[in-house]
C-alpha cells in the first residue's frame, strides 16, 4: 500500500535486531560455495569475453535452453525461440503492464495479491479489481460475475493476474477444476492471463498440477518464470513466454528498459545446468523449506490464539494468517516491532484497503529457531490484543498467561517498553537458543 505509515514501519523491519518474517527471501546460504567458485572459474576460462559483453535482448540461446528444460520439468514444453529472458520475474510484470495498460485500464488480480506487483500496477495507473480466494485459490465464479459486471460498464480488463501455485501472499493453490475453468473463461472472453509461477516447483506435498500455460497451450496465457526461487535471486534472471504479438511488444519494451539481461548471469545459469544437477539442489531446497514450513505451522498452532486462522500451504514460501477483525495488523506491527519481530501487514496485498486483519509470514529465509521465536513473540502480542479487546468489550476473558505453564521464558523486561527497540547485545541471533 502507498501509505507512508506502513513504509516507515517496514523500514524498521530491516534493523539487524529484528527477526523478520516479513521478507520473501529464498535461503541462498545452502548453495555450495565451491560450486559457485568452480562455475565462475570455468566461465572465466572459456567465455570471459562473452560473459562481459552485451547479450541479445531476447536472451542467449544457452540460457533459453535451460529455461525450456525447467518448463518441461514442470510439464510445460516450450520452444526456446518463444522465450524472452528478463531481469527477474518482476520485469515481466512491468513489461506486461508497459505493453498493455493505459491509465485507468482494468487489471484483475487476486485478493490478496503479490505486494510487489502493487507498486507496478499503480505506476501504470491501472484500476485493479481484486477477486476473493479460498482454499482452492481464486474464486473463478466470482471472477466471471465480476467480468460480467465490468462488461455491462463497458470495461474490458487488459489482463488477469494470478499466481496459481502457492500464491504469494495467501499460500493457497488454484485447484485443477478451477485451472481448467479459468483457461476456458480466458478463451471464451478472449482475455489474457498473466500466470506468475515462481514457486510451482517448490511443492512439499501433494500431486503437481498442470500450469495454466500447459492447459491453454499459450494461446491466452502469458507465462512468467524465474530462477530466483530454484537457483538464486541474486542473478536476477526470469523469463516469459507469451502470444507472439504480446511477446514482440515486450521485447521492444525490454530494449527500452535495459537492452538485455546480464550475459554474465545467463552464462552462469548455462554453466550450472551443464555441470551440476539443478534438480538435486531443488530437492535440497524443498527439504529445507518443507521443514521450515512445518516448524512455522507447529509454532502457529502452539502460540497463536484460537481466534486466529492461517493457511496451510503445500509449497512456496508464505503462510497467510488472519486475526479477528478488531485487530489491525498495521498497528499490530508497531507493537510487534517493540518485541523485535516483523511481518507484512495484510493491507500491503490489497489496493482497496482490505486485508487489515491479516498478515503474511515468510518461512523460507529464516532459521528454524528464529521461526519459533518470531512466531512466539507475534503470538504473545496477538494474545495481548485479544485479551485487551475482551476486557474492553466485557466479552471474552483475557487470554491466559501460559508462559510459565509451558516453560517458556518470560518476556525480556527490556522489550516491555512499547516501540522501544533496544539493540541486542548478542550479535548472532541464530545461535540464540531461546
Amino acid at each position, binding site marked *: 500500500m*502507498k*501509505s*507512508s*505509515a506502513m*513504509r*516507515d*514501519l517496514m*523500514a*524498521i523491519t530491516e*534493523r539487524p535486531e529484528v527477526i523478520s518474517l516479513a521478507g520473501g527471501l529464498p535461503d541462498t546460504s545452502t548453495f555450495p560455495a565451491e560450486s559457485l567458485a568452480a562455475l565462475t572459474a570455468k566461465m572465466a576460462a572459456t567465455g570471459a569475453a562473452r560473459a562481459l559483453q552485451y547479450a541479445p535482448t531476447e536472451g542467449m540461446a544457452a540460457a533459453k535452453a535451460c529455461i525450456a528444460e525447467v518448463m518441461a520439468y514442470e510439464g510445460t514444453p516450450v520452444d526456446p525461440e518463444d522465450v524472452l529472458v528478463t531481469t527477474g520475474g518482476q520485469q515481466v510484470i512491468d513489461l506486461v503492464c508497459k505493453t498493455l495498460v493505459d491509465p485507468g485500464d482494468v487489471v484483475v488480480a487476486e485478493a490478496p495479491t503479490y505486494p510487489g506487483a502493487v507498486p507496478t500496477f499503480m505506476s501504470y495507473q491501472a484500476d485493479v479489481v481484486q477477486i476473493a480466494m479460498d482454499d482452492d485459490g481464486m474464486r473463478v465464479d466470482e471472477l466471471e460475475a465480476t467480468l460480467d459486471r465490468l462488461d455491462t460498464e463497458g470495461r474490458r480488463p487488459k489482463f488477469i493476474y494470478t499466481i496459481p501455485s502457492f500464491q504469494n501472499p495467501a499460500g493457497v493453490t488454484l485447484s485443477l477444476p478451477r485451472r481448467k475453468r479459468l483457461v476456458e473463461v480466458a478463451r471464451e472472453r478472449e482475455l489474457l492471463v498473466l500466470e506468475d509461477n515462481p514457486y510451482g516447483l517448490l511443492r512439499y506435498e501433494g500431486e503437481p498440477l498442470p500450469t495454466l500455460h500447459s492447459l491453454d497451450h499459450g494461446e491466452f496465457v502469458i507465462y512468467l518464470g524465474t530462477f530466483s526461487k530454484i537457483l538464486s535471486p541474486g542473478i536476477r534472471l526470469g523469463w516469459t513466454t507469451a502470444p507472439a504479438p504480446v511477446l514482440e511488444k515486450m521485447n521492444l519494451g525490454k530494449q527500452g528498459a535495459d537492452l538485455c539481461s546480464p550475459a554474465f548471469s545467463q552464462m552462469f545459469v548455462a554453466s550450472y545446468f551443464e555441470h551440476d544437477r539443478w534438480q538435486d539442489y531443488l530437492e535440497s531446497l524443498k527439504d529445507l523449506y518443507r521443514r521450515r514450513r512445518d516448524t512455522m505451522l507447529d509454532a502457529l498452532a502452539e502460540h497463536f490464539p484460537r481466534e486466529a486462522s492461517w493457511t496451510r500451504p503445500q509449497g512456496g514460501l508464505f503462510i497467510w494468517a488472519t486475526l479477528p477483525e*478488531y*485487530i*489491525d495488523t498495521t*498497528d*499490530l506491527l*508497531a*507493537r510487534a*516491532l517493540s518485541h523485535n519481530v516483523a511481518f507484512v501487514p495484510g493491507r500491503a496485498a490489497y489496493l482497496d484497503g482490505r486485508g487489515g486483519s491479516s498478515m503474511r509470514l515468510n518461512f523460507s529465509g529464516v532459521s528454524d529457531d528464529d521461526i519459533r521465536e518470531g512466531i512466539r513473540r507475534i503470538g504473545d502480542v496477538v494474545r495481548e*490484543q485479544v*485479551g*485487551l*479487546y475482551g*476486557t*474492553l*468489550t*466485557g466479552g471474552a476473558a*483475557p487470554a491466559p498467561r501460559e508462559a510459565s505453564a509451558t516453560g517458556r521464558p518470560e518476556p525480556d523486561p527490556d522489550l516491555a517498553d*512499547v*516501540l*522501544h*527497540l*533496544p*539493540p541486542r547485545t548478542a550479535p548472532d541471533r541464530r545461535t540464540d537458543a531461546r
Partner: protein
Amino acid sequence: MSRVAVLKGGGSLERQVSLRSGARVEDALQRLGHDVVAIDVGGDLVARLRRDAPDVAFVAMHGRDGEDGTVQELLEILGIPYTASGVSACMRCADKVLSKHAMYDAGIATPDFYSFTETAFKELGAAEALGDIEERLEFPIVVKPADQGSALGVRFARSAADVPPALVAAFSYSHKVLLERHVHGRELAVSILGDEPLPIVEAVPREEDFYDFSARYTIGRTSFVCPAQLGDAVTDAAQALALDVFRLLGCRGFARVDLMLEEETGQLFVLEVNAIPGLTETSLLPQAADAAGIGFDELIGRIVEMALQPA
C-alpha cells in the same frame, strides 16, 4: 566554524522521516561551512560522541529516544550543547497527557480528554467507565497513543462500537492512550523559532478524507497553505497562544505547536507541541520559515547558533 554531530535515525517508528530530516540538515550545515559528523543513532552513540567530540549536536530525531528527552539526557551527561529543547521540555512535549495537564493547569485551552494506561483496563476495570467518558466527550471521539508522533495509531471513533478497536490500535503504540473531544474546525500549525512565532501553516484535508487519518498522512492527499488565510486577529491570537505554550512547556530553539480553530465557536485549542518537528522538504516548519523569508540554510544556521549560545 564548528564541528556539528547530526543525530538521526534511531529505532523509533519515525526513523525514515528522521533520516530525511538529518540528510537535509547535513547538506545545509556543509554549505554553511561546518564540519559535519552524521550519526545514525544506535548502541554506539555515546562511544561515537566521545570519539568525535563535536562542539554541538544537531538532534534531527523524531519520536522515541530522540524527541522524548532520552538522547538529550545523554548529551547533558557528555557536556555537549545540543539544538532545540532540553530534557524536561522534551519529556513534557512527548507525553501528550503531561502536556495537556500542564495546559489545563495554566488555563490554556486544550480539548477535553481522559487518559488511561493499559493496566487500568486490564486490572482496574476501566472499561466500565467508557460509557461515562463517551457521554461527556460526545462522538466522534479521537483516540490516540499518548506518546507517538505523526498520526500513527490515531483513530476517530464515531460510535461506542468503534471505541474498543480504536483503543486496541492506540495501545499498539503506547502503554498510555487518551480519548479526546473532537474539535471540528481548521487545523493550524504555528512554528516557533527562537522566541518568534513564524507564519501559520494550515493543513487542508480533502473533504472526503476528513475522518481518514491514513489518507491525511499520505503525501498529496492533504494540501498546506502558508500563510494561512485567517485575518489579523485570529493570526495574532494563534501565534500568541503558541508562544505561551512553547514557554509554558519550557521549550527552546524551535518547536511546532498544533492548534485547532473550532468552526462553531471560533475558539482556539492546543492539540500538542512537537519538540523536534520534521525538517524534510515537505515539513511544515521549513515552509513557515520560508514564508518569513528565512531560507533553509539560514534556519539551520540560526538553530545551531542558538544551541551554542544559550540565552
